[in-house]
């Protein structure tokens, strides 16, 4: 097992010298292979620890492979391959400057994501969390115009600010309470923290992890949309935001302890807040005309599902949360890919300009349709299963009203996503476009987005796979 992690590190080291797309591709594939191997080992029940070094009492730099992290790493690394292919098409299609810097920063961001996924204690996780923030900053500010700078600034201030003001205190407090920061199933502070303390600590964590974009700390996500689309796609639909909710999930399961949360009811407020965030973000998404802004708010809303599930903290809800990380990743990355493909080939960024585009870009828009259905949570797309678990989990936690929230949100999702599809296929294009037809996006763009859409579809038929994989980690409790 350790050699595997070794290879993984070589991959990381390798990556810093990668400046060409091909190399990026090769590394991404290598990384995926490594991660997949680890994943297989995890399925076989292997749980290795890998201590890099110890900094001081309570602060260890160590890795530990566990199912949740392996799953997250698998999804992120797989989508990196897809996204790399897509990036090539996008970056070339739009003649973006400074591509070298772009790919390099991307690679670092991915290593940080892997670090988050495999870290064995809060401190290691926190370090990689910050690395991720910093390495994505150049990506957000990539265009280097004043908008991008402002976006980047907001991005940094929100994320680092939140992590410094809330996350570090939470770390310190946890350390004082528990004496260490290692992830342990069942939580490490469950024996020592009173309900009030747990509640405050949870609040510190939840708000400290600004990447989870829980309202009112969601402002960075829409403003980070100034980044090139591959960045929005992989980072702001998968790696960064998922790192956020993944961290929350880890905190709930391994630090605070879900049973402890259930007993103390310390997460009650978070259920309400996440529900509010969920609905409010969807409502705001309805009002946005810019495609990426709409998707960004949709992401905020979808992340709240995961936080909500984490707050409910029953085994089924946690399962739903873990699954939602995966399902939303595939769905939302498809949508972002499509937004980028439209930008590349049609130079359009607004929903209101999309009339009739479905006929010029059929594959792209069908993929969008599929992705949208998955996000809404409709069969036969995989998004429905995670919502099912969250709903069941909320029943289990005696919070049946949450189901109503889920329903309202799904309907809102329909209301803001479906009009895009409808415009694309069932409205006629304007005169100028009939004379100057738009072509389908470059194949480098179309193939990845079709692939992710297809995966949304295929995963629907494999619910049992998830279940047996995740059930094991839930049964540990």
């Amino acid at each position: 097992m350790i050699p595997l992690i070794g290879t993984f590190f070589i991959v990381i080291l390798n990556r810093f010298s990668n400046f060409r797309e091909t190399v990026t591709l090769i590394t991404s594939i290598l990384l995926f292979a490594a991660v997949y191997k680890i994943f297989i080992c995890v399925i076989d029940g292997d749980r290795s620890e890998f201590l890099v070094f110890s900094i001081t009492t309570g602060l260890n730099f160590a890795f530990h492979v566990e199912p949740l992290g392996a799953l997250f790493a698998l999804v992120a690394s797989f989508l990196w391959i897809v996204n790399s292919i897509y990036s090539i098409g996008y970056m070339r299609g739009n003649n973006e400057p400074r591509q070298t810097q772009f790919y390099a920063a991307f690679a670092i961001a991915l290593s940080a994501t892997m670090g988050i996924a495999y870290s064995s204690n809060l401190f290691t996780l926190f370090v990689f969390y910050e690395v991720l923030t910093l390495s994505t900053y150049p990506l957000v500010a990539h265009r280097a115009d004043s908008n991008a700078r402002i976006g980047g600034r907001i991005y940094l201030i929100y994320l680092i600010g939140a992590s410094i003001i809330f996350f570090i205190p939470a770390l310190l407090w946890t350390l004082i309470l528990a004496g260490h920061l290692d992830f342990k199933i069942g939580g490490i502070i469950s024996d020592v923290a009173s309900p009030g303390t747990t509640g405050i600590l949870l609040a510190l964590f939840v708000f400290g992890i600004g990447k989870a974009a829980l309202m009112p700390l969601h402002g960075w996500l829409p403003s980070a949309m100034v980044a090139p689309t591959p960045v929005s796609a992989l980072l702001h639909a998968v790696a960064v935001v998922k790192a956020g909710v993944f961290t929350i999930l880890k905190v709930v399961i391994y630090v605070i302890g879900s049973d402890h949360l259930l007993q103390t009811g310390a997460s009650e407020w978070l259920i309400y807040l996440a529900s509010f965030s969920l609905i409010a973000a969807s409502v705001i998404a309805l009002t946005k005309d810019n495609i990426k802004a709409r998707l960004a708010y949709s992401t905020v809303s979808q992340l709240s599902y995961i936080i909500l599930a984490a707050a409910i903290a029953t085994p089924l809800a946690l399962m739903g949360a873990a699954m939602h990380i995966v399902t939303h990743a595939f769905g939302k990355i498809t949508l972002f890919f499509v937004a980028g493909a439209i930008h590349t080939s049609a130079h359009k960024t607004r929903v209101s300009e999309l009339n009739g585009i479905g006929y010029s870009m059929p594959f792209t828009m069908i993929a969008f349709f599929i992705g949208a259905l998955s996000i809404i949570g409709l069969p036969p797309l995989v998004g429905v299963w995670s919502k099912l678990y969250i709903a069941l989990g909320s029943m289990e936690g005696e919070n049946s009203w949450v189901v109503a929230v889920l329903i309202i949100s799904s309907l809102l999702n329909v209301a803001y996503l479906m009009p895009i599809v409808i415009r694309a296929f069932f409205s006629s294009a304007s005169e100028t476009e009939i004379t100057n037809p738009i072509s389908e996006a470059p194949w480098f763009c179309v193939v990845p987005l079709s692939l992710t859409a297809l995966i949304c579809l295929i995963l629907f038929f494999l619910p049992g796979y998830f279940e047996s994989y995740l059930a094991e980690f839930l049964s540990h409790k």
Partner: protein
Amino acid sequence: MIEFPPGLILIFGAILVPILKGYVRLVWTLILPLFAFLVILSLPNGNLFSLNAFGQELQLMRVDQLSRLFSYVFLLASFIGGIYSFHLRDSIEAPASLIYGGASVGAVFCGDLLSLFVFWEITAIASVFLILARKTARARSSAIRYLIIQIGSGMLLFAGLTIRWHQTGNIDFGHIGLDSPGGLLIFLAFGIKCAFPLLHSWLVDAYPEATVTGTVILSIFTTKLAIYVLARGFAGTEELIWIGAIMASFPIFYAILENDLRRVLSYSLINQLGFMVVAIGIGTEMALNGAAAHAFTHIIYKALLLMSVGALLYRTGTSLGSQLGGLFKSMPLTAGFCMIGAASISAFPFFSGFVSKAIILSAVAHEGYFVTWLVLLFASAGTLHYVGIKIPYFAFFSSQPGIKVKEAPINMLIAMALAAALCIFIGVYPSLLYDLLPYPINYVPYTASHILSQSLLLLFSASAFIILLRKGIYPKQLNSTHLDVDWFYRKPGRDLIRYIFIMTSSFYNHLGSNLIDRFERFVYQLYRHHGPHGVLARTWPTGSMVLWVAVLLVAYLLFYFI
């Protein structure tokens, strides 16, 4: 032996449709339902196929008499619909119809609520394309409303099933009943698709806005699927009798007033559903047989009627009663088929509606629900009025507006002919239908009493129509909108949402500008004190520093001495 739900034959088959062209496509779209039909025919009864997921056994092929009956009629209607829509060159409608039909067939065979939910939502998604394909602005907005309501129904089902799952630990789809919150939610979910009163507005809103073929296809599946699931889950639920009675009666008023013939037929659809819902509410074997039989016949004659009105729309471009008329001469065959459909729905003896409606009425009377019985009788008379007479009259016989059109395309005529033939065939040989019914039946529809009473009812009702029309009392056909329940969400509801938007956005703007304002002022203050020329950044005056030294010294001394 087929190892997967036959509905999937249609769904997967649909993927090929956009690639195919012309007759190949026609043949393919006809083969699929035919093949599925043969497959089902060959299946024995029982739970044939199950999946394990989520710790539950998902039954995807529960074959029994009830599911068989509905699957047959669905496939039959798909088949006819396939012929009817042969003229389409569009690559969206045909696959959407097939997926829609396939999902409905799939849903019929579901033995658990979760797989039912899956197919339930697929029908919602697939069907909305039939409305969208009309490509008008009205159709688009209507489609969005339709989709949200349909998916909302699915979501209610979802909520209901999770509650049941949590409470009982299983999600088998058997009798559900209203005695638990989960059951209630599921009831509501079914009720939406079944167009229960107050929940019905999506139907009359969206169906008339769909395409020519779309409305035909739409009328077949969604509501009848709802009837099927109600019969499964809520047979014998007393409340359904009242709901059904209202459903059977209130659409009459709208149907009389409405100008758009397809909307008239949509209201009539609700009215016909009312009969079935009452029967399910009664829940005796005979009543359920009646409901199933009526669903069967109704699918065919309603499709027939919509096909004929669709042919009109196709040829003339309108389906408004006020703009049609006198088309008997240019489209005689269509007119004939339409009248067969009208006769069937009005339940004239020897037409299919008669043999099924009679069972329901007898069942109601048999169980002693007299008021209901009267209401249904009243509704029957109404049905004759607004469909049996009004549609043929305004479409084909009233004054000639001077439209000269061709007869309907041949494929439409064939489809209509098939449906018309079935209407008459079943009307004449009811035993064919009766053999398919879920429970054994020994009902004789053609007694002298039945025929006579029905004839009397219909003839005198018709005479009332003539007299009222002559007296000028009969309401005029106006290009207008008649308010329905959808008013609540299309007017005040929409205004409310807009209001909320405006309020929140102005709130945000206000808050935002306020915050930015404050922040700027704060930064300015900071700058005044901390900026390069601020007090705190002044470094040159040595004197002030010495002063500070003195101050601090005194302060320390004071503090230490105290």
